[in-house]
């Protein structure tokens, strides 16, 4: 049982199990998704604790934890996240005065992934999917009918969402982001799925273990492009996406 003060401020890293999110919701906690950029502080302030060459998502999580006033943090250190998160939890426990609670999300109950296949700007899709982590409410798939895909995006939510604006509204989402919407982040089978009929960008954060899977799947896909990016998306990364979509005949790609 989680004991929380009224208006408790709780940070999450990765996706804690539905039971925990439900309990936080029931207690009226304010949830902060620390994987997303929430503060404007310089990333360099994390370098005393983490190497510069490290997953930008977890560096962001630590940056948020250093600068936000929080009452506790839940961090998924199971197969739905990564070993890096386990080690970051050790660091957080050492430098923060609040409880840093490790959990393992091995939830298997599928919530569905209607937003992943809906017609909607890719950036908005990711905003909705990542926001959905903070709720356990059932989806209403009838609000998001599937569209015919013109492109695919496989991978995790990028640290820099700006690269998502390059894709057409008809981009279907695969990989861990689909697992995220489905609330089964450790579902390796779902994570490895893709649509071989549409050109697909296989994205992973630089220095993330998922780069191996992204690169592997990109070679299996008939029209797949492997892509990794660190903290921000540079001009060459943007150009790669843009050229890949253009040269693959995706006519409605955003400029």
């Amino acid at each position, binding site marked *: 049982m989680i004991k929380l003060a009224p208006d408790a401020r709780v940070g999450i890293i990765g996706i804690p199990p539905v039971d925990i999110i439900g309990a936080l919701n029931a207690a009226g906690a304010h949830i902060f998704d620390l994987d997303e950029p929430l503060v404007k502080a310089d990333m360099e302030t994390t370098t005393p604790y983490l190497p510069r060459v490290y997953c930008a998502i977890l560096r962001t999580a630590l940056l948020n934890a250093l600068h936000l006033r929080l009452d506790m943090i839940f961090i998924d250190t199971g197969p739905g996240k990564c070993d890096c998160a386990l080690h970051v939890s050790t660091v957080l426990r050492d430098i923060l005065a609040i409880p840093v609670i490790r959990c393992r999300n091995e939830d298997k109950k599928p919530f569905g992934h209607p937003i992943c296949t809906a017609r909607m700007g890719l950036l908005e899709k990711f905003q909705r999917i990542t926001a959905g982590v903070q709720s356990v409410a059932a989806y209403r798939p009838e609000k998001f009918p599937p569209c015919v895909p013109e492109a695919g995006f496989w991978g995790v939510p990028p640290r820099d969402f700006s690269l998502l604006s390059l894709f057409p509204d008809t981009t279907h989402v695969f990989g861990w982001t689909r697992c995220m919407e489905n609330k089964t982040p450790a579902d390796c089978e779902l994570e490895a799925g893709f649509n071989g009929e549409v050109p697909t960008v296989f994205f992973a954060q630089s220095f993330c273990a998922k780069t191996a899977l992204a690169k592997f799947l990109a070679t299996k896909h008939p029209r797949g*492009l492997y892509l990794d990016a660190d903290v921000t998306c540079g001009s060459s*990364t943007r*150009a*790669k996406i843009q050229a890949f979509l253009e040269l693959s005949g995706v006519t409605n790609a955003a*400029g």
Partner: protein
Amino acid sequence: MLLADFGTSYCKFLDLADPDGKPYLIATKELPRELRVGLATGHNARRFSDLYVNELTALARGGEELIDSADYVLLDCGSRDIKYVSYSRGKLVDMGWNSECGASMGFTIELLEKYYNLDYGELAVPDRTFSITCGVLGMSHIFDAVTSGISEAEAVARFVKGIAINAYRFCGSPEILYLSGGLCANPLFVGSLPCTVIPLGRFVLIKGLEKTAGQGLRIAL
């Protein structure tokens, strides 16, 4: 319509209004500030044109025009970056653009030739090489080698071979490599690539712009 590929060291132009027109070069530092062109690529393109095609797209379109094969790897080595496109059965299957770790390779090669007063046409491809992933960082190998008694020419040759091998691996180590960019005219660099090299010269991206303009292909703004 004037087409332009705005490179870091050199800019390439083609005037479509001139029926006998041939592509030509202008050093980037000599560009008129008020210059405007009809369609452009290159990292400086937006300064000189309202219509922009990104470099990878221009490279790919140029390759489609110049290469009579359905399966190929086309690598462009510029002053500042390296990029490639790979085609299989006439379709794009892979691409890459390295402007960070592969930075400034072409620029550094040209700089070293002038600094050490060398002629790349006279340098033999060395047996040994340096392990190089960045033009700027790689220069320390040259200084270390010269300090250890190796001649400046040999040290620079090893550096150039290291850059060539890095570029070759970057584009997937093909058996046959179509090469674009100013380094096509550098025999030491071309000879250092461990594969069959088919140099296409400096104007591949211009050819891609020509195709884009001629066929009304999508233009990225």
